[in-house]
């Protein structure tokens, strides 16, 4: 029931008094009105803009947010108002819906934003009033189409091949998307070149060349250099046949491929040659054979694979089929009418060229399209009058459907341009998004870095710990908990690939860098190495600005590991290698991420430990200066 009608309910109930004298039975008891509060004004605060309305107004639609008890969730006791953190501009329209019973769609708003607001307030979009419904539907359809296009562009066939694809699939992909591989590109250009050559040859062979010795008449080049042209034609046809057969082989659905337009064009382009081979040199049949050669010109349509504009044109014509049909039909009607009239008007005159109605068709067409060859001209006055009417109406009839076709073409062309632009920009967009995402992951790794390196007691923790919002703190804590749960640590892409690399290359200290830290019991070194590797990863991350030479990665790695493991401990001497490392491994801060690793003993084959601490500070200097200043101090003190 419409909203406003609810206000007339008291009147309807009062009018029921009119039935009472005629009632056969006694009337039922009226419902007890518990909530007989007098109507009150509610305050609704939407992002600072304060709206006021009667409670009754909102109660009109009890199945929406504002009409039901759901709004109590947004009630602010202190300010005695309902607070919504949404767009106040949109809320205006929502509230007007309650007031007037009609929902309007504001044309300057984004359709998705409007939909979201409606969804939030629990209003079904179907009740938009008739005045705005069409606009809403159009915009929504347009938006959906655009989204569909975008997702299509995203899943563009530029995506890398699935790993397990047969050679057939790869071949098909090469044909459809030439820019995916160099071979396909080469083939694409070669076929394009041969199409051009074939078409040019077809054209040139009809040009008259100088006649050979002993002949007076000019000869077309085709006959003079017959052999040369024949060889060229053979070569082209061979290439086209080969291409067609390859495509047929690679096509995922052969039947569908054979029915497609391009395939038909291919067949039509090469058929005449084969027919010509098969056909005998018979005078009667060669006439038909000559006609067949006309079909060779269809090779030019093969260019549509190479040109997008041509494809758009073809698609436009297909989509404007109804307009073209209308144009054709109206033209035919007009031609018949005017031809008949002209024929009868010119019937009497001597030597009239209008010999029959079909003959007059030619005159009508030439006049309506304003060509006016002048080979057929009316001589009588009536003929001239009707002729002028014919030419005037021709202009009109042709001009009518043309704008429709033009606008269709323009729309499709722009859509295509847009799709191409989107695809080009997509890569840049994705790269930027990835970088932004990296920022957050980096922040977490940074946080771990700071926690691990920083001495809880020293002042430097203050330096290390940057200003982080409460949200970030909690988020990082959450990620930390996840690490503890799964017994794995977060790293970034770069270090992960490095880990894989170092795994394969092998460590100098011949420790297996298996990342499964659960097997620490048997292989103590495994426990240490992943941690160290990750440590290195975290370090590397922190030093994103410093370019660590990859060449000497191994040596530097080991040194790094040693130095950092040494550096991070707060006490004990450098000389006590085993104990150092043991202490290092057992450091609670450090093993934050890896709980169940039993403290691995010192890595005995640790000859690579630098004997002199001299290079260490140097190396340390390469790394992040801030975190290491205190460590350098410690080392020197040791």
């Amino acid at each position, binding site marked *: *029931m*419409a909203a*406003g*009608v609810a*206000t*007339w*309910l*008291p*009147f*309807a*109930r*009062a*009018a*029921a*008094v*009119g*039935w*009472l*004298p*005629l*009632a*056969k039975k*006694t*009337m039922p*008891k*009226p419902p007890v*009105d518990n909530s007989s509060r*007098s*109507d009150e004004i509610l305050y609704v605060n939407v992002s600072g803009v304060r709206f006021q309305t*009667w409670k009754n107004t909102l109660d009109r639609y009890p199945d929406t947010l504002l009409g039901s008890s759901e709004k109590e969730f947004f009630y602010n006791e202190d300010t005695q108002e309902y607070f919504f953190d949404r767009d106040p501009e949109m809320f205006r329209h929502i509230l007007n819906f309650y*007031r*007037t019973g009609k929902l309007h769609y504001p044309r300057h708003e984004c359709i998705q934003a409007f939909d979201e607001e409606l969804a939030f307030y629990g209003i079904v979009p179907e009740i938009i009033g008739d005045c705005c419904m069409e606009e809403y539907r159009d915009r929504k359809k347009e938006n959906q189409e655009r989204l569909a296009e975008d997702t299509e562009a995203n899943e563009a066939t530029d995506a890398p091949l699935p790993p397990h694809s047969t050679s057939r699939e790869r071949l098909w992909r090469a044909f459809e998307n030439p820019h995916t591989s160099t071979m396909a590109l080469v083939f694409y250009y070669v076929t394009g070149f041969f199409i051009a050559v074939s078409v040019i040859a077809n054209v040139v062979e009809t040009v008259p060349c100088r006649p050979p010795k002993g002949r007076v008449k000019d000869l077309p080049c085709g006959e003079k250099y017959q052999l040369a042209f024949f060889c060229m034609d053979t070569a082209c046809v061979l290439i086209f046949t080969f291409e067609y057969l390859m495509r047929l082989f690679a096509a995922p659905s052969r039947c569908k491929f054979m029915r497609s337009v391009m395939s038909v064009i291919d067949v039509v382009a090469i058929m005449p040659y084969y027919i010509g081979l098969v056909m005998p040199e018979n005078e009667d049949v060669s006439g038909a054979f000559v006609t067949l050669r006309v079909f060779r010109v269809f090779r030019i349509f093969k260019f549509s694979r190479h040109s997008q504009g041509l494809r758009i044109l073809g698609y436009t014509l297909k989509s404007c089929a109804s307009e073209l049909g209308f144009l054709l039909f109206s033209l035919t009607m007009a031609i018949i009418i005017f031809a008949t009239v002209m024929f009868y008007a010119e019937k009497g005159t001597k030597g009239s060229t209008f010999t029959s109605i079909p003959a007059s068709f030619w005159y009508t067409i030439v006049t309506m399209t304003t060509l006016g060859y002048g080979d057929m001209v009316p001589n009588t006055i009536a003929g001239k009058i009707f002729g002028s009417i014919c030419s005037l109406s021709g202009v009109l009839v042709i001009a009518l459907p043309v704008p429709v076709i033009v606008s269709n073409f323009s729309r499709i062309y722009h859509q295509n341009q847009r799709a191409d632009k989107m695809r080009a920009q997509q890569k840049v967009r994705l790269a930027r998004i990835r970088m932004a995402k990296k920022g957050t992951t980096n922040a977490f790794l940074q946080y771990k870095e700071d926690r691990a390196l920083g001495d809880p007691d020293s002042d430097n923790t203050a330096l290390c710990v940057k200003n982080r919002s409460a949200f970030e703190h909690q988020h990082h804590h959450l990620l930390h908990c996840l690490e503890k749960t799964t017994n794995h640590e977060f790293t970034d892409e770069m270090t992960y690939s490095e880990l894989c690399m170092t795994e394969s290359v092998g460590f100098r200290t011949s420790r297996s860098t298996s990342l499964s830290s659960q097997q620490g019991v048997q292989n103590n070194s495994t426990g240490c190495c992943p941690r160290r590797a990750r440590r290195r990863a975290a370090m590397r991350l922190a030093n994103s600005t410093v370019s660590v030479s990859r060449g000497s990665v191994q040596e530097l790695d080991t040194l790094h590991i040693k130095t950092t493991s040494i550096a991070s401990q707060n006490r004990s001497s450098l000389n006590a290698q085993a104990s150092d490392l043991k202490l290092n491994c057992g450091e609670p801060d450090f093993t934050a991420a890896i709980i169940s690793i039993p403290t691995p003993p010192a890595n005995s084959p640790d000859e690579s430990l630098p004997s002199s601490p001299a290079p260490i500070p140097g190396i340390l200097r390469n790394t992040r200066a801030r975190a290491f200043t205190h460590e350098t101090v410690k080392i020197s003190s040791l």
Partner: protein
Amino acid sequence: MGAVVGTLTMQTKQRRPSTDKADDDLEMTMVCHRPEGLDQLEAQTNFSKRELQVLYRGFKNECPSGVVNEDTFKQIYSQFFPHGDASTYAHYLFNAFDSAHTGSIKFEDFVTALSILLRGSVQEKLQWTFNLYDINRDGYINKEEMTDIVRAIYDMMGKYTYPVLKTDAPKQHVDAFFQKMDKNRDGVVTLDEFILSCQEDENIMRSLQLFENVI
């Protein structure tokens, strides 16, 4: 020449009334009726100021122009009875509300009628009902009028009823009640007969109190 000019001018003259009519139509749709002051209405009816405010707000919301015409009235009333056809009964109701027979109900008419129906005395209510039944306003209810009213009420029920509605149900209904009301058997029911017969019926008296707390 003069004749040509004359006929041309005549044509233009004829054209002008139609344009005037168009202007009139335009004016009518723009007409906005404002009710008398709140104090006056409060004095005339049995409603308090607050109740009048609530009533007016609802009224103005539905009819911003300040008047209800019969079509709108029928539309509104039909919305309460979606099963059947309430237009006939709404037509009678409209005539009962529109006491001045202007063709449209203003807010004063609306409120006056409501005041009688909800806050009026038994006498006033019964008199209003009598006016409702007396379609041709001649002071008497004859059997045809009552049959019309009863049929209109049955129309509101619609087709799907239990038990199934027979075609002569309104007639039977009327027969039963007319006999009760027409005391002197003269074929018509006067106002006094009507009030008397209603006052004798306990059920009617009791049910008249039912709708008092509607607002």
